[in-house]
């Protein structure tokens, strides 16, 4: 699958680089100085590159852990996010990444130890605060786990700090790292979901909804906390019926006791990003419908957004307590990303 690997000279001898290269011994290795030489250069075509992305192994020098925008969270006072990778194995048509980067190549930061150090520092800096860390902001946190091993590396860190929450957001069913160890109470494995008919049309290359729900069930039964995420909410004919079916399926399959939180959020794009994505996929049905622009944000009309949010909230509270239902606020959506 990956036949080209660009390697920053600085990480050429990093043990993780060596082990990854060992797994792709037929791939062509191309030395580079810094990943920016290859990634996000002008004159690249994200859509064509997505046909066969290369892997870039790099070192993250700064900004390992970032503050999450206000309104983005599942109950903690302080929220942080981090991404050990840029870009994703999947190809969801509403994904912000396709408007954010000009390159579809995967950048993997191999210096996981720096992430761990920064997380440690933050936890010590805020000893009496409730903190949540979100993994998988610029990527899917588990989709390439079999290659990266990032989740397996980072999980033990959180085991030490039981008051700090870590969320892995994913559409992947690669749940082996969680099956191999005993459950950690302060870890949430959050699955992005939408009705099957919509997912079939929009979540290209991602595992089917049924399998994601099954993965949630397996993890829940093993004692892990899971979090269904309905974000972005997609509108269309019979959306209520489709969402109702999905909610019934999720909440009757996944044991209620394992549900840490449920969140939902509207489909929103900053205008410039929407323009770039529309240029890439002008034939996409998602963009044909009513997506007007308001104050630099492209989104469904407010009436649609509100109706969908109310519908979701009313349904969720039939299955779980109101206290574990969270809505991603518009501000968070504008900065954050559909996942």
């Amino acid at each position: 699958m990956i036949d080209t690997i660009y390697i920053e000279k600085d990480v050429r001898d990093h043990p993780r680089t060596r082990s990854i290269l060992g797994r792709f011994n037929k791939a062509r290795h191309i030395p580079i100085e810094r990943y920016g030489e290859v990634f996000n250069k002008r004159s690249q075509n994200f859509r064509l590159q997505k046909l066969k992305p290369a892997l870039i192994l790099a070192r993250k020098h700064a900004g390992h852990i970032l503050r999450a925008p206000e309104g983005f969270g599942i109950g903690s006072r302080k929220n942080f996010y981090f991404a050990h990778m840029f870009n994703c194995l999947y190809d969801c048509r509403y994904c912000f990444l396709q408007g954010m980067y000009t390159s579809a190549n995967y950048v993997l930061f191999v210096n996981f130890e720096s992430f761990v150090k920064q997380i440690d520092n933050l936890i010590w800096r805020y000893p009496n605060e409730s903190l949540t860390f979100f993994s998988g902001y610029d990527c899917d946190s588990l989709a390439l786990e079999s290659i990266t091993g990032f989740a397996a590396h980072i999980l033990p860190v959180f085991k030490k700090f039981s008051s700090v929450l870590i969320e892995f957001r994913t559409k992947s069913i690669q749940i082996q790292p969680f099956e191999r160890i005993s459950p950690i109470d302060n870890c949430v494995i959050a699955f992005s979901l939408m009705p099957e008919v919509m997912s079939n049309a929009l979540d290209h290359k991602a595992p089917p909804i049924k399998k994601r729900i099954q993965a949630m069930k397996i993890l829940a039964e093993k004692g892990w906390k899971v979090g269904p995420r309905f974000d972005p909410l997609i509108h269309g004919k019979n959306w209520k019926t489709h969402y109702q079916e999905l909610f019934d399926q999720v909440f009757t399959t996944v044991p209620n006791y394992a549900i840490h939180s449920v969140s939902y959020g509207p489909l929103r794009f900053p205008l410039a990003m929407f323009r770039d994505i529309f240029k890439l996929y002008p034939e996409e049905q998602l963009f044909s419908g009513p997506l007007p622009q308001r104050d630099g944000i492209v989104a469904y009309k407010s009436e649609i957004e509100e109706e969908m949010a109310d519908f979701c909230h009313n349904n969720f509270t039939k299955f779980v307590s109101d206290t574990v239902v969270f809505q991603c606020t518009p501000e968070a959506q504008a900065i954050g990303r559909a996942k």
Partner: protein
Amino acid sequence: MGKGTAIRWVVALEPESIAIRKKYQMTRIAISGPYPIFKDVADCHWLTISGVGRVHAAAATMYLHQVSSAPPWAGWVNVGIAGHGAGTYGTLYLVDKIMDKSTGRSGYPGPVLSSNSVRGSLMTVDKPETNYGNDLLFDMEGSAIFEIACRLSCQQLVLVLKIVSDGPNIDVKKLTSKMISDLVSNSISEIFKLVGKLEILTKKEYDRLELPVAYYAIKKNWHFSQSQEYRLMHLVRRWQATAQNKELMHYVDECKDAKSIIQKLSIKLDNHEVDWGKS
């Protein structure tokens, strides 16, 4: 060759062009200009011969772009001979890294084509290089063609192909025109295969970038200002994405001006609900 196929070839030397011109049955077009231009009957493949060096290579690429009205979805191909410290004479390389010795810049032709071709790094130099490194190809044009072609199209649609012609044991000065044309000729079926894959990519880009016929038809019948044209383009694309059976032209037939067309289409599309069950 389907609609949307657009390939532009740049070679440095006349003998490098012979097998390509023959393969695509290209003939010289009768215009006088700084560089000779050839094309096939279908106007899909165009070729120019730049002469040696980066300056000529860049200028010829631009010239071909203009003369052939190369669309933004055109694929660009540079085929040429190159020196190599260890490569076997006649081996075709698909270049995936280009270093320009004089500027120190590097470029990375993104290999989105699946191929079994041998891949290699190229160093473009200003003077013939006889001090061959171990694992590098050397030429005098590649970086310039790549840089310009990327601006005219995109990195994923530029192919740089080099055939080993000289090295520590093969003296570059002893190369004859016949040897050069044979080198390309012997690799032509592999080149043809790679370019066939590039054609598929250009077709994909054509489908993405080319505006629907209805857009041109509407513009022909009504007058649109520049900003209205932009809105119309957006609306026509959305209309197409809705996969409605209705003919767009019929739908706007009775509109009296550009403004009313835009209004009618906007209202229709803003009330459109995607039927996900059907997709």
